């Protein structure tokens, strides 16, 4: 298998999930339990992505400048700061802490 063919196969595989979700019959979604679980799934996945992004590196748990940076982001969100401010502040805090060898 060449690398390019693998890329095409993997892309089709990922797309199949995206498309499949739009093909599921309407009635399935009208059940309150399904929509509730779907909403909670978004919460669970976003939270898992956030946590692995902030606390792991490769296959290891690693606590570094990303942790205080995420706390700053949380404080800014608590005070309703705009999205871009939160993201730029987080990047800035992490970059600054790393300059000082944290």
């Amino acid at each position, binding site marked *: *298998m060449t*690398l390019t063919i*693998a*890329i*095409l196969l*993997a*892309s089709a*595989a*990922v*797309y199949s*999930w*995206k*498309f499949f*979700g*739009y093909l599921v019959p*309407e009635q399935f*979604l009208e059940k309150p*339990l*399904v*929509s*509730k*679980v*779907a*909403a*909670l*799934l*978004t*919460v*669970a*996945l*976003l*939270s*898992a*992505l*956030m*946590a*692995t*992004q902030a606390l792991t590196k490769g*296959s290891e*748990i690693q606590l570094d*400048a*990303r942790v205080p*940076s*995420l706390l700053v*982001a*949380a404080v800014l*969100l608590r005070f309703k700061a*705009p*999205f*871009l401010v*939160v*993201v*730029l502040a*987080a*990047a*800035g*805090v*992490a*970059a*600054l802490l790393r300059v000082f060898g944290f």
Partner: protein
Amino acid sequence: MARRQVDTMSLGVGIATGLYGISFGALSVSAGLDIWQTQLLSLLMFSGGSQFAFIGVVASGGLASLPAAIASAWMLGVRNGFYALQMKPLLEPLGFKTPVAAQLTIDESTGVATAQANSAETKRGFWLTGAAVFVFWNSLTFAGALLGSALADPSVYGLDAAAAAAFLALLWPRLKQRQPLIVAAAAAFIAVVLTPVLPSGVPILLAAVTALVIGGLNLFKSTTQAGDR
């Protein structure tokens, strides 16, 4: 949320995510893909987690690991199917736009769309964020691939921290009730604790099981249930 705020948020998410595309482009080239293969991933796969998983496996295992690379990208992409499930009733009627909506159904577009208060803003948020992320992610993937390994470590610029903060910002408006709060805490804990022992992508999928269990059995129900999302 006013219409202008939706636009600003969509653009902000697009730029923030796009910036991370620089490091994807650079990392992909250093993993052994050429510039065009890298660009193909961003255009066709268009799902950050799956793309990073794919190049991560190829970087460590070479051509022999291609089946594993495909499988891990696929597994990490399953959440997009759940996003599609959630977006379908919110975006209708879609018609011929369905294949396009499907390709744009990712963490960020779903995140912005479902954070809006009404139907018009939900749709606007979805399409604008999807389009903005697509444009910035692809153009900055190209820039990153050209820059090669010079920017390969996103941690130097704090971009890894920015990505975590972006996910937190998308999560924040959904945490107003007890049930989603507990789901979020449990999912974060499970994903991190399982990362050292399971293949890339699997801990995130297992963390999603918390939503099935807590939502399915309706545990930790809040006293206020009206209009929860």
